[in-house]
């Protein structure tokens, strides 16, 4: 088991390295010279060159890459070209916002999707199960941002229950923070919950067909008991996979919701930095997102080992 974890960890590190090279290379081919964008299009070649030098863009690519990697490892990737603001703290702030948003949504989604999904599976031949299943299909089909816009329109603009957007620091304004968290979390969680519920349903249906569930019933467990004691843990493996993928998608997918709700998260930082051609910020944000995704994959893998003893022995 330890060996398997080590192996996965090694794959994780190699993947991160590969991804960093990809991201870095991609940023190098990005058109639009940051120095020129900062100075305006008719700035003299001399001043552009000076600024490039100041940004370190004239150094060999490999040096720039290594420099960037060192910056990332020391959690200090440098300062922005244009605003001169340090990138590290900015990303930390934004990431914190996005993480709160994504985690809250994920919790909402799981709280709704797991019971609903199980219900849909258990009752899949009954009217209520079919209706819920159909509803989840419709839920999957609604664009998250549309849901966000409608939520704002109803609950913020018309009913005035909560603010239409923005963000508050939880420590300073806990009530305002929660008020501002509700709608975006629901908008983000809604679609995820619908997707997740469908996966839960399918995983539970699969488990319901397993021989060992029949064994459990032959032992004298009623269907619900059998599912509870023997089914759920086994159904968890595919669901955990989907959860991991969803979490990763959410991290980036939050950019749309952040836009709708004017939340200063990582996604909006990315969009702004792209527009400003803040190469260093863009590549660092992208890298943070990519590492987060890979990390989630790694953790999901580790979680498998906890859930499924079959995976613990390296031989299988």
């Amino acid at each position: 088991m330890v060996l398997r974890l080590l192996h996965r960890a090694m794959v994780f590190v190699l993947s991160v390295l590969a991804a960093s090279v990809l991201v870095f290379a991609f940023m190098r081919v990005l058109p639009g010279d940051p120095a020129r964008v900062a100075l305006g299009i008719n700035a003299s070649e001399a001043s552009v060159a000076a600024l490039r030098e100041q940004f370190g863009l004239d150094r060999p690519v490999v040096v720039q890459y290594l420099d960037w990697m060192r910056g990332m490892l020391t959690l200090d990737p440098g300062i922005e070209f244009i605003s001169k603001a340090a990138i590290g703290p900015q990303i930390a702030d934004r990431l914190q916002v996005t993480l709160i948003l994504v985690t809250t949504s994920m919790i909402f989604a799981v709280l709704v999707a797991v019971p609903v999904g199980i219900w849909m599976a258990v009752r899949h031949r009954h009217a209520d199960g079919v209706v819920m299943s159909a509803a989840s299909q419709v839920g999957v089909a609604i664009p998250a941002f549309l849901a966000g816009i409608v939520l704002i329109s109803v609950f913020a603009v018309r009913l005035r229950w909560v603010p239409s957007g923005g963000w508050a620091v939880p420590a300073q304004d806990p009530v305002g923070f929660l008020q501002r968290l509700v709608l975006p979390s629901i908008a983000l969680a809604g679609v995820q919950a619908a997707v997740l519920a469908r996966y839960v349903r399918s995983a539970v249906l699969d488990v319901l067909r397993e021989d060992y569930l029949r064994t459990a019933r032959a032992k004298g467990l009623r269907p619900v008991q059998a599912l509870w004691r023997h089914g759920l843990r086994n159904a968890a493996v595919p669901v955990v996979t989907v959860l991991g993928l969803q979490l990763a998608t959410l991290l980036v997918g939050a950019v749309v919701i952040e836009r709708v709700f004017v939340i200063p998260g990582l996604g909006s930082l990315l969009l702004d930095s792209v527009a400003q051609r803040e190469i260093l910020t863009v590549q660092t944000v992208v890298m943070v997102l990519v590492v987060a995704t890979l990390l989630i994959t790694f953790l999901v893998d580790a979680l498998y080992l906890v859930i499924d003893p079959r995976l613990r022995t390296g031989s299988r």
Partner: protein
Amino acid sequence: MSEVQGAAADAVTDSGQAPAGGSPGRRLNPSLLVGGAIVAVVVGLALLSYVWTPYAPMRVLPVEPYQTPNAEHWLGTDRLRRDVLTQILVGARTTLFVGFVAVGVAALVGVPLGILAAMSPGWLGQLVMRGNDVLLAFPALLLAIMFAALYGGSTRVAMIAIGIATIPAFARITRSGALGVMRTEYVVAARSAGRSPLGIAVRHVVPNVAGLVIVQASVSFAIAILAEAALAYLGLGTPTGQASWGRMLYEAQTTLRSAPHLALIPGAAIALSVLGFNLFGDGLRDWLDPRLEDR
């Protein structure tokens, strides 16, 4: 073969179903029918738009803006005095285009990669799948944003980005399907009959994973439609000059409360077609997989 056998508990050796082979006469499920119907309608609308639209596409008309549905304009007119129905019809083309580009890119790259990974058990297969995992760490939207920065926002660029981000999904599903096929005895039979690896890939693996790929394509199609809408919202999607449901929705936001139908109509069109493709994919999966028959 009767479908009852799946339900009957006896292990029927002649259960009659290939891993992914729908047999004629299998009962069509409601998902497949409803999904198929919706997909057919979308395709129909797109085709119809080539032959007939109520008004010239994208044309600003000398009429009042913000009309609600009426006899002249069945779905009303928008802020720029364009006929909404016309845009919905022409927008169906974009929707299909979006799906085809994204799914096409993903399938054209992902399927061969998946087959390659399944058929080369050694380091090559490992390399392909590890590369796939790295690509998986670039979610669609992230790639789309990066690509939009690189090439400017356009439907094609956005969809290629989404297509690339979808490659891992296709590669994985193809690989797992192909691994299953490679384990079958008919592949061993083909080898012992003297088929080359390429021959096996073409004659046996591809036809037998086609079902899985089609299901994945249908689901990815739906995801691509949603992604186009999201990108349109971020201003990275379909540019003006092309009718697109995502774009219509984007443009209708500012008048959401004064002219809600302008948002509702394309919103419903998007949701319905996504629903259609999802249902179609689900239904197809059930139809192709006898194990899931009674779902």
